[in-house]
Structures are given as structure tokens and as C-alpha cells.
């Protein structure tokens, strides 16, 4: 018994560019004739024909792809938009067929390329659970057995017989997620579906998936969120230009991906032009500007001083209740700090067009380092834009700890006002005339005492 769950060999997928518009009926008939006679097949099997006209009309979304995934592995697939992630998942889910090569899958596959596939607004929650479950491959008996769990997970018991068109979009996503979370295949293929839904529910789903993964199931997980890839997956595959560029542990691959992204960002692709971003695109972050206490644009900020981070956005349509978010990550790829309108209860509406959202930071309690800024625009129902390496923030030291010492990168990114005392010694010394008698002060000079 081999323990390979998925084996991909020389996989390639070619798409036709633009609309398949036969210019003349004759062409269309000829094309159909060729298809019917099976000549189209030979053409494709003969391999990539690199004629000039050929390459103008077609694009290889995936090419020469080879990898193997072992049973029970939880594998993250990362890469920029257009790297071939979605095409790969579509082929493995059998939604579309490859042009070349083959893939062998050992085990029952459940795939989740979208949340709530087949949900119909006119049908009740209950009816949609059954329909959606069946579409995802569950039998009616399976669904009936898990129905109560699904409804409880979605926290929608009271509304289960209401048509889903009366649901808020949060409720809608919760129900859709709940069905998906109760899929029970041996191999689970998940596209970036966690980008929607409210955050607390997202967390619940991640938890559920984590549980599923521990149950020995093989999971293939595409995400733009390096955080969830790192926390969910053991290993990862980095795709670039339709090929496998790197495989390894999730930490290694994510680290390398971040490094390459940072490099690319440094090479000056302007934020507005970057395509390695998630979200619906209703609004996009086009620039991130760091400003000091007096609102002067700056590259660095001093610890413990006020600063501002401006998110310049371009709204492609009027958007309501935008909650902006900023994430500051250490060079090691760890999240140091998340600033989010949802935490503070701020949400803004914007007409279509350009604008600026400003985050004021009262005191930046981060140790001196270079932090990369990830930016987020979204509302309760989903993300408009998610982009990593949207900017950089260099924190320089002040006299915060007057010793001039700061934590190193193994000691956490935070700095915090604190001092030390020695109460057990103090209680005996106090009667005899005070803390100055405590010798420990010599070892740990207190900032306040020195000021």
C-alpha cells in the first residue's frame, strides 16, 4: 500500500486567450468537425506547439508541473495571482481537464473552490444545506446525519426554514461554511475561501479545518494569507509562472515567498500595479505612506512616539463600511501588530474614486526593526483588498529604555514600560530605611529612578 495521496506528472493546462469567437460560421463548423473527429485531441497530445501564432492565441496556465503529496499531509499552495494555483485546483477537482500530463489521486476527493456553490436565494436554509451538500458530494444520508451539527455550527437554528435571501450576508456565509466544514472526504481541496466571512467565524472554520487535518486527512490549501498557511500547513508548494518553483516545509517556503515578494516590491513595482493581492477589488490600496507626529512623510518612526500610516485607496465603486486594516510583520515573517478598524469600531463609506484612510498610532510600542506593512480593506462580509509588503516601517530607537538595550528578535517585538522591585527583600529592609538599601538596583537600574 503506497502512501501517496496525489501524484502530479508533467501536468499542463493551456487556455485560449480572449473569446472563443469563430469569425465565420465556416470556421466554427470546421472547428466542430475537428473536435468531433477527435483531431483536437491529437493536436493537444502532440505537445506544446510553439508557433508564433500559437503563443499569441494561447496561454499556459500550468506547465510541466510535477509533485507528490503524501497521505495525511496538509499542504499549502502559494504564489502570486496567475501563478496557476486556481487552475491546478480546478484540474485536481476535475472541474476542467489538463491539456497534458496526468494526475493520480488516491482517495475520495472533496473540493471547495467556492463557498455556497449552488445556494439558491429562494430556497430555505434547510433546502440549501441538502442541495449544497449533494453538490459537494455528500449523500442524503450523510447530510441528514450531520444536519444538526451543521445548523449548530452555523448558529442559525432559528432561521433554518427561512429563505436564504432574507439572510444577512454574514448568515449566508456562515451556513455555507458550515456545510463545507462538515464534508468528510479523504482528500480536501480548498481554494481561498476563507477570505470571506466575518473574522470570528473564520477563526472557527480554521479551527475546524485544523481538527480535520489532525484526523489524518490530506488537505490541499490555497491561500493568500501566509499566516494561515503557516499555522495550518506542514509543507507548502510555491508556484511561479505555472510551474513548481519551490517545495519544502511551510515555514521555509513562506519565508522564501516573502523574501521574493519583498524583493519584487523593492524593485519598485508600484502598489497600484501589483497583482499579487486578494479580495474582490471593489477598492484597492494604491499607496501606503508613513507619517510622523506632525504628519510629515517619513521612512522611520521612533519607538514610543506617535505616528500615522495613511492608506491611499482607489474605490472602483461606492463602498460602504470599509474597515481598513494594517499588519506589521517582522523581517522573520511574524506578525508583530495588527491595527484594524474592526477592533476600534471604525468603518468608513467611500464614493468611487481616490481617497485616504489614516491610522493614528498613539505610541508605537515596537522594538527597533524594519517591519513590513500588509494592508487590508474590507467590510464584515469580505475583503476588498489584501496585499502584503505594501510598505515598510522602520522603527528606530529612542531613549525608551534608557539603558539603550532592547529586546532582540528572539525576545518578542514589543516594548513596554515596566520597572522592577524586590518586595520580599523590601519587606525586611523597609523598616530599616528604604529601598536604596536594595543592592539589586545596581544590577537592574530603574529607568524611573534615573530620570
Amino acid at each position: 500500500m503506497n502512501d501517496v495521496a496525489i501524484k502530479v506528472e508533467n501536468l499542463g493546462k493551456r487556455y485560449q486567450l480572449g473569446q472563443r469567437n469563430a469569425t465565420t460560421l465556416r470556421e466554427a463548423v470546421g472547428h466542430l468537425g475537428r473536435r468531433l473527429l477527435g483531431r483536437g485531441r491529437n493536436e493537444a497530445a502532440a505537445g506544446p506547439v510553439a508557433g508564433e501564432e500559437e503563443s499569441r492565441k494561447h496561454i499556459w496556465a500550468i506547465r510541466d508541473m510535477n509533485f507528490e503529496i503524501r497521505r495525511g499531509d496538509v499542504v499549502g499552495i502559494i504564489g502570486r495571482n496567475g501563478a496557476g494555483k486556481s487552475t491546478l485546483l480546478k484540474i485536481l477537482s476535475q472541474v476542467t481537464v489538463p491539456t497534458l500530463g496526468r494526475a493520480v489521486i488516491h482517495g475520495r476527493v472533496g473540493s471547495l473552490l467556492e463557498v455556497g456553490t449552488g445556494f439558491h436565494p429562494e430556497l430555505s436554509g434547510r433546502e440549501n444545506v441538502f442541495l449544497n451538500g449533494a453538490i459537494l458530494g455528500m449523500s442524503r444520508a450523510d447530510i441528514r446525519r450531520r444536519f444538526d451539527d451543521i445548523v449548530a455550527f452555523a448558529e442559525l437554528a432559528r432561521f433554518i426554514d427561512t429563505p436564504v435571501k432574507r439572510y444577512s450576508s454574514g448568515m449566508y456565509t456562515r451556513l455555507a461554511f458550515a456545510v463545507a466544514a462538515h464534508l468528510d472526504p479523504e482528500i480536501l481541496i480548498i481554494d481561498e475561501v476563507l477570505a470571506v466571512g466575518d473574522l470570528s467565524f473564520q477563526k472557527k472554520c480554521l479551527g475546524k479545518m485544523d481538527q480535520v487535518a489532525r484526523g489524518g486527512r490530506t488537505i490541499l490549501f490555497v491561500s493568500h494569507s501566509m499566516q494561515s498557511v503557516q499555522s495550518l500547513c506542514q509543507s507548502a508548494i510555491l508556484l511561479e509562472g505555472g510551474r513548481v518553483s519551490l517545495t519544502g516545509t511551510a515555514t521555509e517556503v513562506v519565508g522564501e515567498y516573502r523574501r521574493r515578494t519583498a524583493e519584487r516590491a523593492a524593485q519598485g513595482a508600484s502598489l497600484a500595479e501589483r497583482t499579487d493581492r486578494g479580495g474582490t477589488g471593489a477598492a484597492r490600496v494604491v499607496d501606503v505612506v508613513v507619517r510622523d507626529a506632525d504628519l510629515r512623510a517619513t521612512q522611520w518612526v521612533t519607538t514610543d512616539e506617535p505616528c500615522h500610516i495613511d492608506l491611499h485607496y482607489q474605490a472602483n465603486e461606492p463602498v460602504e463600511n470599509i474597515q481598513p486594516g494594517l499588519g506589521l510583520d517582522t523581517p522573520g515573517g511574524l506578525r508583530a501588530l495588527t491595527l484594524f478598524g474592526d477592533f476600534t469600531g471604525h468603518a468608513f463609506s467611500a464614493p468611487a474614486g481616490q481617497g485616504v484612510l489614516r491610522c493614528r498610532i498613539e505610541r508605537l510600542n515596537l522594538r527597533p526593526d524594519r517591519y513590513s506593512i500588509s494592508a487590508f480593506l474590507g467590510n464584515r462580509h469580505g475583503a476588498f483588498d489584501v496585499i502584503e509588503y505594501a510598505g515598510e516601517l522602520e522603527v528606530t530607537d529612542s531613549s525608551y529604555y534608557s539603558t539603550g538595550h532592547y529586546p532582540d528578535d528572539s525576545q518578542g517585538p514589543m516594548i513596554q514600560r515596566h520597572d522592577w522591585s524586590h518586595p520580599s527583600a523590601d519587606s525586611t529592609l523597609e523598616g530599616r530605611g528604604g529601598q536604596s538599601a536594595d543592592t539589586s538596583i545596581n544590577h537592574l537600574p530603574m529607568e524611573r529612578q534615573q530620570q
Partner: protein
Amino acid sequence: MSEIDRQINPTGAPVEVTIILPHRGYRTLALGMMWRARELVVLLASRDVKIRYKQTILGGLWAIIHPIVTMIVFTILFGRMAGLPSDGSPYPIFVFAGILPWQLFASALSQSSNSLVANQNLFTKVYFPRLLLPISSLVVAMVDFALALLVLIALMAWYGVMPTWAVLTLPIWLLLALASALAAGLWFSALNALYRDVVHVVPFITQLLFFLTPVVYSSSLVSDKWKLVYGLNPMAGVVEGFRWALLPSAPAPGALVAVSACVVVVALVTGLLFFARMEDTFADVV
């Protein structure tokens, strides 16, 4: 190209092995796969039936209002004013017995032709045999048909028309009507995924076929030497057979039905092959 590999894994259950290749071949026609997906057919069909009359005041009544009003208009226009013969049955019953199978065909055809495009959000996200879509879309037409059939029974009771033993052949004609609709639906739905021209072609063809089908008139108006050619329209045979099954005075359909049945079989088989051949590309081109 899916098969159950009889390897035994540690838990003793067979491991399903899926081999994904550039071409699925005619896999969609595998009956096993269709059988496993039968629950989905039922759910898709019941979804379509449930939403058909949602948020309407008259609801399912529309399924009988349409044929009744059509029958009244045809009776006045063709029965009274034009005085078309009705093979010895009261004209209203004669024409209603024609409208019924015709509408079953016409609505099944239009639903199934549109089934791929209407469900593209499904099959571009999840794999299931695409053939389920045109098949499940026949069910809605059947529900409407069943309701209208009740009206015909009431109408026959009112006029005191009793069917003969020929009524036992009714399922054959229904099957033939559905097979005709599915055959054309397979071709049109696959083509529709590629060329939306089909949306405009189908109503047009349906309208032309209507005049070539003995709904308002009797096929006895067609001269014998043209009868067989006339039978190339499969619905000609179906409507003739349907009338004969229900109305005692209707003449037994002859060779015309054999021609119709052959056309249906050929169209259905080629339709299935064409659909299966095109299936690989649906998700990419729709």
C-alpha cells in the same frame, strides 16, 4: 476516467483511485456514475420545481392556465372559425390532447437547452456528471405536464369521452416526447455553452416545429405520400400516438411513428456522444 481500485488500505476499505487525464473520453455516459449521482438529479430537479412558482400569486395554477387559455383560443380560431377537422372528437379535447405533449416537449427543450448556461456557477466549481443538468431540467416540464393532464382528464369526463385500452401506451408517448426534447436539448445545451446564438435559435426552431406538428390540425390532412417525411419531425409521431392513446375516435398512428422513433433514437445517441465529447471543455468555454 475513474475506477475503484481494489487495493486494500489498512482500514480494509477499498481506496478510490482517480486518474486525471487530458481527456475524459465518454465517461459521463458511465451508468454507474450517473447512478451514484441520482440524489443530485432529484435535488436539482426539486430546486427547479420549487423556485419556478416562488413569489407568484397563482403559483402552480400557471401550469394549467397556460394550456387552458391556449386551448380556448385554438378552439375558437381553428375549431370554430377555420373549421379544422378533429377526427371525430370534440375539438377542445382534440386540441388539448395535442397541446399537452407539445408543451411538455417545448418546455423540456427550452429548459434543457439552457441548463448548462443556467448552471455554470455549479459545474465550474464542482465536478459531477454534466449530463445531470439537461436530464434534471426535464423534470420541471414533467411536473407542469402532470398538472395539465389532470385538466385533460376532467375535460374528458365532462365530454364523456372514455379512453380505450390504448391508454396503456401513454407512457411510451411520454417517453418519446422526453427523449425528443433531451436529444435536441443535449445538442443545444452543449452548443449554447460555446455560442449563445442558441438562445435565439431554440425558440425559433420550436415555433417552426409547432406548425409541423399536428397540434391544431389532424395529420390526416397530410397526404399519404408525405406522411413518412412528415414523421421525420419526432413530435408528429408523439402527438399522433398521444391522441390515439386517449381519444377513442383518433386513428391509430402508422408507419409515421416508426419514422419518428428512429429519428429520436438517432438524435439521442448522437446527442449523448456529442455532449460527452464536448464535456471536457464546458468549464473552460462557458
